[in-house]
Protein backbone atom coordinates (compact mmCIF):
# COMPACT_ATOMS: atom_id res chain seq x y z
CA UNK A 1 0.00 0.00 0.00
CA UNK A 2 2.69 2.44 1.06
CA UNK A 3 4.36 2.67 -2.30
CA UNK A 4 1.12 3.69 -3.91
CA UNK A 5 0.70 6.63 -1.58
CA UNK A 6 4.05 8.16 -2.43
CA UNK A 7 4.76 10.56 -5.21
CA UNK A 8 4.88 9.11 -8.70
CA UNK A 9 8.33 8.64 -10.18
CA UNK A 10 9.56 11.45 -12.33
CA UNK A 11 9.22 9.82 -15.74
CA UNK A 12 12.15 9.03 -17.95
CA UNK A 13 10.32 10.05 -21.13
CA UNK A 14 10.53 13.26 -23.07
CA UNK A 15 10.45 16.90 -22.05
CA UNK A 16 6.67 17.11 -22.21
CA UNK A 17 6.22 14.15 -19.90
CA UNK A 18 8.52 15.75 -17.35
CA UNK A 19 6.64 18.98 -17.55
CA UNK A 20 3.40 17.05 -17.08
CA UNK A 21 4.85 15.56 -13.90
CA UNK A 22 5.85 19.01 -12.65
CA UNK A 23 2.40 20.36 -13.53
CA UNK A 24 0.64 17.58 -11.66
CA UNK A 25 2.66 17.81 -8.48
CA UNK A 26 3.11 21.56 -8.36
CA UNK A 27 -0.65 21.86 -8.75
CA UNK A 28 -1.61 19.18 -6.28
CA UNK A 29 0.80 20.03 -3.47
CA UNK A 30 -0.60 23.51 -2.92
CA UNK A 31 -3.94 22.91 -4.63
CA UNK A 32 -6.20 23.24 -1.62
CA UNK A 33 -4.41 26.35 -0.38
CA UNK A 34 -4.67 27.84 -3.88
CA UNK A 35 -8.36 26.99 -3.88
CA UNK A 36 -8.72 28.87 -0.59
CA UNK A 37 -6.81 31.83 -2.03
CA UNK A 38 -8.98 31.87 -5.14
CA UNK A 39 -12.23 31.73 -3.17
CA UNK A 40 -11.29 34.48 -0.73
CA UNK A 41 -9.57 36.57 -3.39
CA UNK A 42 -12.56 36.38 -5.71
CA UNK A 43 -14.87 37.44 -2.89
CA UNK A 44 -12.41 40.27 -2.31
CA UNK A 45 -13.37 41.93 -5.59
CA UNK A 46 -16.57 42.85 -3.77
CA UNK A 47 -14.93 43.55 -0.41
CA UNK A 48 -16.59 46.87 0.38
CA UNK A 49 -19.96 45.64 -0.86
CA UNK A 50 -19.66 42.69 1.53
CA UNK A 51 -18.59 45.13 4.26
CA UNK A 52 -21.81 47.02 3.74
CA UNK A 53 -23.97 43.89 3.66
CA UNK A 54 -22.38 42.84 6.94
CA UNK A 55 -23.24 46.16 8.59
CA UNK A 56 -26.86 46.62 7.56
CA UNK A 57 -27.38 49.33 10.18
CA UNK A 58 -25.26 51.81 8.27
CA UNK A 59 -27.11 54.54 6.39
CA UNK A 60 -26.83 54.75 2.60
CA UNK A 61 -23.26 55.46 1.54
CA UNK A 62 -22.70 59.18 0.86
CA UNK A 63 -20.64 58.50 -2.27
CA UNK A 64 -19.92 61.70 -4.13
CA UNK A 65 -20.64 63.94 -1.12
CA UNK A 66 -19.36 67.51 -1.47
CA UNK A 67 -15.62 67.41 -0.83
CA UNK A 68 -15.37 70.71 1.04
CA UNK A 69 -18.13 69.68 3.37
CA UNK A 70 -16.74 66.18 3.95
CA UNK A 71 -13.29 67.57 4.68
CA UNK A 72 -14.56 70.10 7.17
CA UNK A 73 -16.70 67.52 9.00
CA UNK A 74 -13.72 65.17 9.19
CA UNK A 75 -11.43 67.96 10.33
CA UNK A 76 -13.79 68.88 13.17
CA UNK A 77 -14.08 65.24 14.13
CA UNK A 78 -10.28 64.90 14.17
CA UNK A 79 -9.89 68.01 16.39
CA UNK A 80 -12.42 66.56 18.79
CA UNK A 81 -11.26 62.93 18.84
CA UNK A 82 -7.54 63.22 18.31
CA UNK A 83 -5.92 66.45 19.39
CA UNK A 84 -2.12 66.57 19.20
CA UNK A 85 -1.93 63.67 16.74
CA UNK A 86 1.05 62.99 14.50
CA UNK A 87 -1.24 62.15 11.63
CA UNK A 88 -4.85 62.60 10.65
CA UNK A 89 -5.90 60.70 7.58
CA UNK A 90 -9.21 61.66 6.01
CA UNK A 91 -10.69 59.24 3.51
CA UNK A 92 -13.42 60.77 1.39
CA UNK A 93 -16.40 58.76 0.12
CA UNK A 94 -15.43 59.13 -3.51
CA UNK A 95 -16.47 55.74 -4.92
CA UNK A 96 -17.16 52.11 -3.94
CA UNK A 97 -13.60 51.68 -2.72
CA UNK A 98 -14.31 54.03 0.18
CA UNK A 99 -18.08 54.25 0.55
CA UNK A 100 -18.02 56.12 3.89
CA UNK A 101 -16.07 59.08 5.18
CA UNK A 102 -13.37 57.80 7.48
CA UNK A 103 -10.98 59.31 9.96
CA UNK A 104 -7.80 57.54 10.97
CA UNK A 105 -5.30 58.97 13.41
CA UNK A 106 -2.14 58.00 15.27
CA UNK A 107 0.12 59.52 17.87
CA UNK A 108 -2.66 61.52 19.51
CA UNK A 109 -2.31 63.05 22.95
CA UNK A 110 -4.73 61.43 25.40
CA UNK A 111 -3.88 64.04 28.06
CA UNK A 112 -5.12 66.74 25.71
CA UNK A 113 -8.42 64.92 25.42
CA UNK A 114 -7.87 62.39 22.64
CA UNK A 115 -10.08 59.33 22.92
CA UNK A 116 -7.15 57.05 22.10
CA UNK A 117 -3.56 57.21 20.94
CA UNK A 118 -4.63 55.81 17.59
CA UNK A 119 -7.96 54.87 16.13
CA UNK A 120 -10.37 55.10 13.29
CA UNK A 121 -13.96 56.21 12.91
CA UNK A 122 -16.58 56.11 10.22
CA UNK A 123 -18.14 59.55 10.29
CA UNK A 124 -21.69 60.57 9.47
CA UNK A 125 -21.28 63.57 7.18
CA UNK A 126 -24.68 65.00 8.05
CA UNK A 127 -24.29 65.06 11.80
CA UNK A 128 -20.55 64.70 12.36
CA UNK A 129 -21.26 61.80 14.71
CA UNK A 130 -19.42 58.49 14.62
CA UNK A 131 -21.37 55.89 12.65
CA UNK A 132 -22.28 52.97 14.90
CA UNK A 133 -22.73 49.47 13.54
CA UNK A 134 -22.28 45.89 14.65
CA UNK A 135 -18.74 44.65 15.04
CA UNK A 136 -17.73 42.55 12.05
CA UNK A 137 -14.71 41.39 10.14
CA UNK A 138 -16.67 42.24 7.03
CA UNK A 139 -15.54 41.78 3.49
CA UNK A 140 -12.14 43.11 4.53
CA UNK A 141 -11.30 40.20 6.81
CA UNK A 142 -12.54 37.72 4.21
CA UNK A 143 -10.39 39.40 1.59
CA UNK A 144 -7.38 39.61 3.87
CA UNK A 145 -7.46 35.85 4.35
CA UNK A 146 -6.50 35.76 0.68
CA UNK A 147 -2.94 36.65 1.61
CA UNK A 148 -2.82 36.69 5.44
CA UNK A 149 -4.61 33.34 5.81
CA UNK A 150 -5.93 33.03 9.38
CA UNK A 151 -4.59 31.66 12.65
CA UNK A 152 -1.10 32.06 11.20
CA UNK A 153 1.73 34.42 11.98
CA UNK A 154 2.83 36.96 9.42
CA UNK A 155 6.37 35.72 9.94
CA UNK A 156 5.75 32.65 7.82
CA UNK A 157 2.43 33.40 6.10
CA UNK A 158 4.14 35.44 3.39
CA UNK A 159 6.41 32.51 2.66
CA UNK A 160 3.61 29.96 2.49
CA UNK A 161 1.47 32.17 0.26
CA UNK A 162 4.40 33.12 -1.97
CA UNK A 163 5.45 29.47 -2.37
CA UNK A 164 1.90 28.51 -3.29
CA UNK A 165 1.82 31.33 -5.82
CA UNK A 166 5.18 30.31 -7.25
CA UNK A 167 3.92 26.73 -7.65
CA UNK A 168 0.85 28.13 -9.36
CA UNK A 169 3.06 30.09 -11.73
CA UNK A 170 5.10 26.97 -12.52
CA UNK A 171 1.87 25.01 -12.99
CA UNK A 172 0.60 27.63 -15.44
CA UNK A 173 3.74 27.55 -17.57
CA UNK A 174 3.99 23.77 -17.57
CA UNK A 175 0.26 23.61 -18.28
CA UNK A 176 0.74 25.63 -21.45
CA UNK A 177 3.72 23.46 -22.44
CA UNK A 178 1.89 20.14 -22.02
CA UNK A 179 -1.38 21.26 -23.61
CA UNK A 180 -0.61 20.20 -27.18
CA UNK A 181 -3.76 21.43 -28.83
CA UNK A 182 -4.60 24.76 -27.23
CA UNK A 183 -6.18 26.13 -30.39
CA UNK A 184 -7.55 22.91 -31.76
CA UNK A 185 -9.25 21.94 -28.52
CA UNK A 186 -10.16 25.50 -27.59
CA UNK A 187 -13.91 24.92 -27.81
CA UNK A 188 -13.93 21.27 -26.81
CA UNK A 189 -15.94 20.14 -23.84
CA UNK A 190 -17.27 16.59 -23.83
CA UNK A 191 -19.62 16.11 -20.87
CA UNK A 192 -20.52 12.77 -19.24
CA UNK A 193 -17.28 11.10 -20.28
CA UNK A 194 -15.61 10.72 -16.90
CA UNK A 195 -11.94 11.58 -16.80
CA UNK A 196 -12.14 13.02 -20.33
CA UNK A 197 -14.78 15.54 -19.20
CA UNK A 198 -12.76 16.67 -16.21
CA UNK A 199 -9.71 17.18 -18.40
CA UNK A 200 -11.78 19.14 -20.93
CA UNK A 201 -13.28 21.29 -18.20
CA UNK A 202 -9.85 21.91 -16.66
CA UNK A 203 -8.46 22.87 -20.09
CA UNK A 204 -11.33 25.15 -21.02
CA UNK A 205 -11.28 26.96 -17.68
CA UNK A 206 -7.50 27.38 -17.80
CA UNK A 207 -7.16 28.42 -21.42
CA UNK A 208 -10.03 30.91 -21.45
CA UNK A 209 -8.74 32.61 -18.30
CA UNK A 210 -5.04 32.30 -19.12
CA UNK A 211 -4.36 36.05 -19.45
CA UNK A 212 -6.07 36.66 -16.12
CA UNK A 213 -4.22 33.75 -14.49
CA UNK A 214 -0.80 34.90 -15.66
CA UNK A 215 -1.48 38.48 -14.58
CA UNK A 216 -2.91 37.55 -11.19
CA UNK A 217 -0.16 35.05 -10.41
CA UNK A 218 2.79 37.18 -11.41
CA UNK A 219 1.41 40.30 -9.76
CA UNK A 220 0.74 38.20 -6.67
CA UNK A 221 4.40 37.24 -6.63
CA UNK A 222 5.42 40.89 -6.98
CA UNK A 223 3.29 41.74 -3.94
CA UNK A 224 5.31 39.26 -1.91
CA UNK A 225 8.67 39.88 -3.55
CA UNK A 226 10.24 41.93 -0.79
CA UNK A 227 9.46 39.27 1.82
CA UNK A 228 10.32 36.35 -0.43
CA UNK A 229 13.53 37.65 -1.97
CA UNK A 230 14.88 39.97 0.71
CA UNK A 231 18.45 39.35 -0.41
CA UNK A 232 18.03 41.53 -3.50
CA UNK A 233 17.41 44.54 -1.28
CA UNK A 234 20.12 43.43 1.12
CA UNK A 235 22.68 43.09 -1.65
CA UNK A 236 22.01 46.65 -2.79
CA UNK A 237 21.49 48.38 0.53
CA UNK A 238 23.11 46.23 3.19
CA UNK A 239 21.69 43.37 5.19
CA UNK A 240 20.66 45.31 8.30
CA UNK A 241 17.27 46.90 8.98
CA UNK A 242 18.64 50.37 8.27
CA UNK A 243 19.40 49.42 4.68
CA UNK A 244 15.90 48.12 4.18
CA UNK A 245 14.41 51.28 5.68
CA UNK A 246 16.55 53.39 3.40
CA UNK A 247 15.33 51.48 0.35
CA UNK A 248 11.67 51.76 1.31
CA UNK A 249 12.22 55.45 1.99
CA UNK A 250 13.73 56.05 -1.44
CA UNK A 251 10.99 54.21 -3.29
CA UNK A 252 7.79 54.54 -1.32
CA UNK A 253 7.87 57.55 0.98
CA UNK A 254 6.05 60.72 0.09
CA UNK A 255 8.48 63.54 -0.67
CA UNK A 256 8.58 66.63 1.50
CA UNK A 257 7.57 65.10 4.84
CA UNK A 258 9.61 66.35 7.79
CA UNK A 259 9.95 66.08 11.52
CA UNK A 260 7.78 68.42 13.60
CA UNK A 261 9.33 71.78 14.49
CA UNK A 262 7.78 71.59 17.99
CA UNK A 263 6.55 75.16 17.43
CA UNK A 264 2.84 75.62 17.13
CA UNK A 265 1.25 77.25 14.15
CA UNK A 266 -2.31 77.09 12.94
CA UNK A 267 -3.30 74.75 10.17
CA UNK A 268 -4.30 76.35 6.91
CA UNK A 269 -7.98 75.89 5.95
CA UNK A 270 -8.32 72.89 3.65
CA UNK A 271 -10.54 74.73 1.19
CA UNK A 272 -7.81 76.38 -0.88
CA UNK A 273 -5.85 73.13 -1.10
CA UNK A 274 -8.91 71.22 -2.21
CA UNK A 275 -9.58 73.82 -4.91
CA UNK A 276 -6.00 73.58 -6.15
CA UNK A 277 -6.13 69.81 -6.30
CA UNK A 278 -9.51 69.74 -8.02
CA UNK A 279 -8.38 72.22 -10.63
CA UNK A 280 -5.64 69.74 -11.52
CA UNK A 281 -7.56 66.48 -11.34
CA UNK A 282 -11.18 67.44 -11.82
CA UNK A 283 -14.04 67.84 -9.42
CA UNK A 284 -14.73 65.14 -6.85
CA UNK A 285 -11.50 63.30 -7.59
CA UNK A 286 -9.76 63.71 -4.24
CA UNK A 287 -9.53 60.40 -2.47
CA UNK A 288 -7.55 61.21 0.65
CA UNK A 289 -6.28 64.11 2.67
CA UNK A 290 -3.36 63.19 4.89
CA UNK A 291 -2.42 65.76 7.53
CA UNK A 292 0.97 65.33 9.22
CA UNK A 293 1.74 67.14 12.46
CA UNK A 294 -1.38 69.30 12.48
CA UNK A 295 -0.86 72.45 14.56
CA UNK A 296 2.91 72.34 14.17
CA UNK A 297 4.94 74.85 12.18
CA UNK A 298 6.17 71.95 10.00
CA UNK A 299 2.72 70.58 9.22
CA UNK A 300 2.32 68.93 5.83
CA UNK A 301 -0.85 68.09 3.96
CA UNK A 302 -0.78 65.37 1.31
CA UNK A 303 -3.76 65.30 -1.03
CA UNK A 304 -4.17 62.07 -3.05
CA UNK A 305 -5.94 61.63 -6.32
CA UNK A 306 -8.58 58.99 -6.89
CA UNK A 307 -7.32 55.95 -8.82
CA UNK A 308 -10.35 55.50 -11.06
CA UNK A 309 -8.58 56.77 -14.16
CA UNK A 310 -5.55 54.53 -14.05
CA UNK A 311 -5.11 50.80 -13.76
CA UNK A 312 -2.08 51.40 -11.50
CA UNK A 313 -2.34 51.02 -7.74
CA UNK A 314 -1.36 54.59 -7.02
CA UNK A 315 -2.22 57.95 -8.49
CA UNK A 316 -0.98 61.50 -8.04
CA UNK A 317 -0.19 63.20 -4.75
CA UNK A 318 0.17 66.88 -3.97
CA UNK A 319 2.25 67.79 -0.94
CA UNK A 320 1.41 71.14 0.64
CA UNK A 321 2.97 73.09 3.45
CA UNK A 322 0.30 72.84 6.13
CA UNK A 323 0.79 76.38 7.41
CA UNK A 324 1.48 78.51 4.38
CA UNK A 325 -0.42 76.33 1.95
CA UNK A 326 2.44 76.42 -0.54
CA UNK A 327 2.55 73.47 -2.98
CA UNK A 328 5.84 71.71 -2.21
CA UNK A 329 5.72 68.64 -4.44
CA UNK A 330 3.57 67.21 -7.19
CA UNK A 331 4.47 63.57 -6.82
CA UNK A 332 3.09 60.91 -9.15
CA UNK A 333 3.00 57.45 -7.59
CA UNK A 334 5.11 56.08 -10.42
CA UNK A 335 8.32 57.83 -9.43
CA UNK A 336 10.38 55.77 -11.89
CA UNK A 337 9.73 53.36 -14.78
CA UNK A 338 10.19 50.29 -12.60
CA UNK A 339 7.92 51.72 -9.91
CA UNK A 340 5.39 52.39 -12.67
CA UNK A 341 5.49 48.77 -13.84
CA UNK A 342 5.16 47.60 -10.27
CA UNK A 343 2.19 49.91 -9.67
CA UNK A 344 0.54 48.65 -12.85
CA UNK A 345 0.92 44.99 -11.81
CA UNK A 346 -0.37 45.60 -8.31
CA UNK A 347 -3.20 47.77 -9.61
CA UNK A 348 -4.26 45.08 -12.08
CA UNK A 349 -4.21 42.50 -9.31
CA UNK A 350 -6.44 44.45 -6.94
CA UNK A 351 -8.67 45.90 -9.65
CA UNK A 352 -9.56 48.91 -7.49
CA UNK A 353 -9.87 51.01 -10.64
CA UNK A 354 -12.53 48.76 -12.09
CA UNK A 355 -15.93 50.29 -12.80
CA UNK A 356 -18.92 48.01 -12.00
CA UNK A 357 -19.06 46.01 -15.23
CA UNK A 358 -15.31 45.41 -15.31
CA UNK A 359 -15.51 44.46 -11.63
CA UNK A 360 -17.99 41.76 -12.58
CA UNK A 361 -15.58 40.50 -15.25
CA UNK A 362 -12.88 40.31 -12.57
CA UNK A 363 -15.25 38.41 -10.32
CA UNK A 364 -16.20 35.97 -13.09
CA UNK A 365 -12.55 35.43 -14.00
CA UNK A 366 -11.88 34.72 -10.33
CA UNK A 367 -14.71 32.19 -10.20
CA UNK A 368 -13.45 30.49 -13.37
CA UNK A 369 -9.97 30.40 -11.83
CA UNK A 370 -11.43 28.80 -8.73
CA UNK A 371 -13.01 26.26 -11.05
CA UNK A 372 -9.67 25.68 -12.72
CA UNK A 373 -8.03 24.76 -9.41
CA UNK A 374 -11.04 22.67 -8.36
CA UNK A 375 -11.23 20.70 -11.60
CA UNK A 376 -7.47 20.16 -11.49
CA UNK A 377 -7.73 18.62 -8.02
CA UNK A 378 -10.68 16.45 -8.99
CA UNK A 379 -9.02 15.36 -12.22
CA UNK A 380 -6.00 14.14 -10.28
CA UNK A 381 -8.17 11.86 -8.17
CA UNK A 382 -10.50 10.67 -10.94
CA UNK A 383 -7.59 9.71 -13.16
CA UNK A 384 -5.83 7.73 -10.45
CA UNK A 385 -8.94 6.00 -9.22
CA UNK A 386 -9.73 4.90 -12.75
CA UNK A 387 -6.21 3.54 -13.28
CA UNK A 388 -6.06 1.85 -9.89
CA UNK A 389 -9.42 0.19 -10.18
CA UNK A 390 -8.61 -1.08 -13.62
CA UNK A 391 -5.50 -2.76 -12.20
CA UNK A 392 -6.34 -3.79 -8.66
CA UNK A 393 -9.97 -3.14 -7.98
CA UNK A 394 -9.60 -0.53 -5.25
CA UNK A 395 -8.12 2.94 -4.94
CA UNK A 396 -4.93 3.41 -2.90
CA UNK A 397 -4.89 5.42 0.32
CA UNK A 398 -3.35 8.52 -1.25
CA UNK A 399 -6.15 8.77 -3.78
CA UNK A 400 -8.79 8.33 -1.12
CA UNK A 401 -7.16 11.07 0.96
CA UNK A 402 -7.12 13.48 -1.97
CA UNK A 403 -10.73 12.65 -2.76
CA UNK A 404 -11.81 13.41 0.77
CA UNK A 405 -9.84 16.67 0.88
CA UNK A 406 -11.42 17.58 -2.45
CA UNK A 407 -14.99 17.19 -1.26
CA UNK A 408 -14.28 18.89 2.05
CA UNK A 409 -12.56 21.83 0.36
CA UNK A 410 -14.11 22.30 -3.08
CA UNK A 411 -17.59 22.22 -1.57
CA UNK A 412 -16.79 22.48 2.14
CA UNK A 413 -14.88 25.76 1.98
CA UNK A 414 -17.68 27.64 0.18
CA UNK A 415 -20.02 26.33 2.88
CA UNK A 416 -17.59 27.83 5.39
CA UNK A 417 -17.78 31.18 3.60
CA UNK A 418 -21.57 31.01 3.76
CA UNK A 419 -21.26 30.27 7.48
CA UNK A 420 -19.19 33.45 7.82
CA UNK A 421 -22.19 35.40 6.52
CA UNK A 422 -24.67 33.43 8.63
CA UNK A 423 -22.61 34.16 11.74
CA UNK A 424 -22.72 37.85 10.92
CA UNK A 425 -26.49 37.84 11.19
CA UNK A 426 -26.94 35.29 13.97
CA UNK A 427 -24.26 36.07 16.56
CA UNK A 428 -25.50 38.35 19.36
CA UNK A 429 -24.83 41.98 18.53
CA UNK A 430 -23.22 42.68 21.91
CA UNK A 431 -20.84 39.72 21.75
CA UNK A 432 -17.43 41.11 22.63
CA UNK A 433 -15.36 39.14 20.14
CA UNK A 434 -17.95 39.09 17.41
CA UNK A 435 -15.58 39.59 14.48
CA UNK A 436 -13.34 36.74 15.61
CA UNK A 437 -16.31 34.43 16.03
CA UNK A 438 -17.46 35.10 12.51
CA UNK A 439 -14.12 33.79 11.31
CA UNK A 440 -14.22 30.89 13.79
CA UNK A 441 -17.64 29.99 12.41
CA UNK A 442 -16.16 29.87 8.92
CA UNK A 443 -13.24 27.62 9.83
CA UNK A 444 -15.23 25.40 12.19
CA UNK A 445 -17.77 24.82 9.45
CA UNK A 446 -15.01 23.99 6.99
CA UNK A 447 -13.59 21.55 9.57
CA UNK A 448 -17.00 19.92 10.01
CA UNK A 449 -17.27 19.53 6.25
CA UNK A 450 -13.83 17.91 6.11
CA UNK A 451 -14.80 15.48 8.87
CA UNK A 452 -18.05 14.74 7.08
CA UNK A 453 -16.13 14.06 3.88
CA UNK A 454 -13.81 11.73 5.77
CA UNK A 455 -16.54 9.54 7.24
CA UNK A 456 -19.12 9.43 4.44
CA UNK A 457 -18.90 7.28 1.28
CA UNK A 458 -17.37 9.19 -1.62
CA UNK A 459 -20.41 9.75 -3.82
CA UNK A 460 -22.69 10.43 -0.90
CA UNK A 461 -20.26 12.98 0.51
CA UNK A 462 -20.44 15.01 -2.71
CA UNK A 463 -24.22 15.11 -2.96
CA UNK A 464 -24.75 15.76 0.73
CA UNK A 465 -22.26 18.60 0.83
CA UNK A 466 -23.63 20.11 -2.36
CA UNK A 467 -27.08 20.12 -0.79
CA UNK A 468 -25.73 21.82 2.31
CA UNK A 469 -23.87 24.39 0.19
CA UNK A 470 -26.93 25.07 -1.95
CA UNK A 471 -29.08 25.63 1.12
CA UNK A 472 -26.45 27.69 2.91
CA UNK A 473 -26.18 30.14 0.01
CA UNK A 474 -29.76 30.24 -1.23
CA UNK A 475 -31.17 30.78 2.24
CA UNK A 476 -28.97 33.81 2.90
CA UNK A 477 -31.48 36.24 1.34
CA UNK A 478 -34.15 34.74 3.61
CA UNK A 479 -31.90 35.12 6.63
CA UNK A 480 -31.24 38.69 5.59
CA UNK A 481 -34.95 39.37 5.26
CA UNK A 482 -35.62 37.92 8.71
CA UNK A 483 -32.83 39.81 10.47
CA UNK A 484 -32.86 43.20 8.73
CA UNK A 485 -35.43 45.32 6.97
CA UNK A 486 -33.34 45.53 3.82
CA UNK A 487 -34.73 42.39 2.19
CA UNK A 488 -34.55 41.62 -1.51
CA UNK A 489 -37.91 43.12 -2.48
CA UNK A 490 -37.09 46.26 -0.54
CA UNK A 491 -33.60 46.56 -2.02
CA UNK A 492 -34.81 45.95 -5.57
CA UNK A 493 -37.61 48.48 -5.34
CA UNK A 494 -35.50 51.16 -3.68
CA UNK A 495 -32.45 50.61 -5.88
CA UNK A 496 -30.27 49.46 -2.96
CA UNK A 497 -27.86 47.72 -5.34
CA UNK A 498 -25.35 46.59 -2.75
CA UNK A 499 -27.96 44.55 -0.92
CA UNK A 500 -29.80 43.45 -4.04
CA UNK A 501 -26.46 42.50 -5.63
CA UNK A 502 -25.37 40.45 -2.62
CA UNK A 503 -28.69 38.61 -2.31
CA UNK A 504 -28.90 37.88 -6.02
CA UNK A 505 -25.27 36.75 -6.19
CA UNK A 506 -25.62 34.24 -3.36
CA UNK A 507 -28.77 32.96 -5.07
CA UNK A 508 -26.86 32.67 -8.33
CA UNK A 509 -24.29 30.58 -6.46
CA UNK A 510 -26.76 28.53 -4.44
CA UNK A 511 -29.20 27.51 -7.16
CA UNK A 512 -26.63 25.92 -9.53
CA UNK A 513 -25.10 24.11 -6.54
CA UNK A 514 -28.54 22.70 -5.81
CA UNK A 515 -29.05 21.73 -9.45
CA UNK A 516 -25.69 19.94 -9.46
CA UNK A 517 -26.62 18.07 -6.29
CA UNK A 518 -29.94 17.04 -7.82
CA UNK A 519 -28.37 15.80 -11.05
CA UNK A 520 -25.72 13.90 -9.17
CA UNK A 521 -28.30 12.31 -6.92
CA UNK A 522 -30.37 11.23 -9.92
CA UNK A 523 -27.36 9.75 -11.68
CA UNK A 524 -26.37 7.83 -8.56
CA UNK A 525 -29.84 6.44 -8.17
CA UNK A 526 -29.86 5.30 -11.77
CA UNK A 527 -26.54 3.62 -11.19
CA UNK A 528 -27.78 1.87 -8.07
CA UNK A 529 -30.73 0.48 -9.98
CA UNK A 530 -28.40 -0.69 -12.74
CA UNK A 531 -26.17 -2.23 -10.09
CA UNK A 532 -28.96 -4.38 -8.79
CA UNK A 533 -29.67 -5.76 -12.24
CA UNK A 534 -26.13 -5.92 -13.63
CA UNK A 535 -23.39 -5.67 -11.02
CA UNK A 536 -20.39 -5.87 -13.32
CA UNK A 537 -21.24 -2.83 -15.40
CA UNK A 538 -21.84 -0.55 -12.49
CA UNK A 539 -18.38 -1.01 -11.22
CA UNK A 540 -17.13 0.62 -14.34
CA UNK A 541 -19.76 3.32 -14.09
CA UNK A 542 -18.74 3.99 -10.52
CA UNK A 543 -15.21 4.76 -11.52
CA UNK A 544 -15.70 8.38 -12.03
CA UNK A 545 -17.54 11.22 -10.63
CA UNK A 546 -17.44 12.91 -13.99
CA UNK A 547 -20.33 10.91 -15.29
CA UNK A 548 -22.76 12.55 -12.97
Amino acid at each position, binding site marked *: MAQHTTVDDLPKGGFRQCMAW*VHTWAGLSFGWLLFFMFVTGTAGYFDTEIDRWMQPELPPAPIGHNVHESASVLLNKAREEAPGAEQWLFTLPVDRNEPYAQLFWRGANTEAGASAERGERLVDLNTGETLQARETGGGQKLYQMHWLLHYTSRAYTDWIVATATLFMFVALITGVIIHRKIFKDFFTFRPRKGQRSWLDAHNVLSVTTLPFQLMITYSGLIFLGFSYMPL*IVAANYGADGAGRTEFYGEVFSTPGLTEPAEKSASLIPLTTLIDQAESRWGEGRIRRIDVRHPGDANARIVVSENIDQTIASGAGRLVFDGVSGELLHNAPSASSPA*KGVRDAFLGLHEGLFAPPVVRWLYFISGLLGTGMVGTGLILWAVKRRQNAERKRGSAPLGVVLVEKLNVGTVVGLPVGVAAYFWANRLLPVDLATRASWEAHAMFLTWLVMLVHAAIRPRQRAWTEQLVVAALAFSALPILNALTTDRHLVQSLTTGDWVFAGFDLTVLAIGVPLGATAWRMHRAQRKRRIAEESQPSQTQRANLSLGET
Partner: protein
Amino acid sequence: MGLHGWRLASLIGAALVGGYALATAVSFFLGQLLPVGRSEATLIGHLLGFTFYAVAILWVFAVRRPGKAWLYLSVASIVFSVAGMGLRG
Protein backbone atom coordinates in the same frame (compact mmCIF):
# COMPACT_ATOMS: atom_id res chain seq x y z
CA MET B 1 12.12 3.26 -13.96
CA GLY B 2 12.24 7.00 -13.62
CA LEU B 3 13.73 9.17 -10.95
CA HIS B 4 12.50 8.43 -7.42
CA GLY B 5 13.36 8.41 -3.73
CA TRP B 6 16.32 10.44 -2.59
CA ARG B 7 17.41 11.40 -6.06
CA LEU B 8 13.97 12.83 -6.78
CA ALA B 9 14.02 14.69 -3.45
CA SER B 10 17.45 16.03 -4.31
CA LEU B 11 16.21 17.21 -7.69
CA ILE B 12 13.24 19.01 -6.12
CA GLY B 13 15.63 20.54 -3.59
CA ALA B 14 17.88 21.75 -6.41
CA ALA B 15 14.89 23.32 -8.15
CA LEU B 16 13.62 25.12 -5.07
CA VAL B 17 16.84 26.04 -3.24
CA GLY B 18 19.21 26.28 -6.19
CA GLY B 19 16.62 28.08 -8.28
CA TYR B 20 16.04 30.53 -5.45
CA ALA B 21 19.75 31.26 -5.12
CA LEU B 22 20.14 31.71 -8.85
CA ALA B 23 17.08 33.96 -9.12
CA THR B 24 18.36 36.21 -6.35
CA ALA B 25 21.88 36.32 -7.77
CA VAL B 26 20.81 37.03 -11.35
CA SER B 27 18.32 39.68 -10.22
CA PHE B 28 21.02 41.41 -8.20
CA PHE B 29 23.56 41.16 -11.01
CA LEU B 30 21.13 42.50 -13.61
CA GLY B 31 20.38 45.51 -11.43
CA GLN B 32 24.09 46.35 -11.32
CA LEU B 33 24.50 45.86 -15.03
CA LEU B 34 21.78 48.34 -15.98
CA PRO B 35 22.67 52.05 -15.97
CA VAL B 36 20.07 52.97 -13.35
CA GLY B 37 20.06 54.10 -9.74
CA ARG B 38 20.25 51.79 -6.77
CA SER B 39 16.55 51.79 -5.90
CA GLU B 40 15.57 51.30 -9.55
CA ALA B 41 18.00 48.39 -9.86
CA THR B 42 16.48 46.78 -6.78
CA LEU B 43 12.94 47.21 -8.09
CA ILE B 44 13.83 45.78 -11.48
CA GLY B 45 15.44 42.83 -9.73
CA HIS B 46 12.24 42.19 -7.80
CA LEU B 47 10.07 42.49 -10.89
CA LEU B 48 12.11 39.90 -12.76
CA GLY B 49 13.21 37.65 -9.89
CA PHE B 50 10.30 35.25 -10.13
CA THR B 51 10.77 34.82 -13.86
CA PHE B 52 14.35 33.67 -13.29
CA TYR B 53 13.15 31.42 -10.48
CA ALA B 54 10.50 29.77 -12.64
CA VAL B 55 12.90 29.29 -15.54
CA ALA B 56 15.48 27.73 -13.22
CA ILE B 57 12.90 25.33 -11.80
CA LEU B 58 11.80 24.21 -15.26
CA TRP B 59 15.41 23.82 -16.36
CA VAL B 60 16.13 21.52 -13.42
CA PHE B 61 13.20 19.27 -14.28
CA ALA B 62 14.13 19.26 -17.93
CA VAL B 63 17.69 18.14 -17.07
CA ARG B 64 16.53 15.56 -14.53
CA ARG B 65 20.01 14.99 -13.08
CA PRO B 66 20.27 16.13 -9.45
CA GLY B 67 24.06 16.32 -9.41
CA LYS B 68 24.29 18.39 -12.55
CA ALA B 69 21.45 20.66 -11.43
CA TRP B 70 23.05 21.37 -8.04
CA LEU B 71 26.46 21.94 -9.59
CA TYR B 72 25.37 24.30 -12.36
CA LEU B 73 23.01 26.28 -10.16
CA SER B 74 25.55 26.72 -7.37
CA VAL B 75 28.33 27.76 -9.71
CA ALA B 76 26.08 30.14 -11.64
CA SER B 77 24.72 31.67 -8.41
CA ILE B 78 28.22 32.27 -7.08
CA VAL B 79 29.44 33.73 -10.38
CA PHE B 80 26.52 36.13 -10.69
CA SER B 81 26.73 37.20 -7.04
CA VAL B 82 30.46 37.85 -7.24
CA ALA B 83 30.11 39.67 -10.55
CA GLY B 84 27.30 41.76 -9.10
CA MET B 85 29.37 42.63 -6.04
CA GLY B 86 32.24 43.55 -8.32
CA LEU B 87 30.06 45.86 -10.40
CA ARG B 88 28.59 47.46 -7.30
CA GLY B 89 32.13 48.25 -6.16
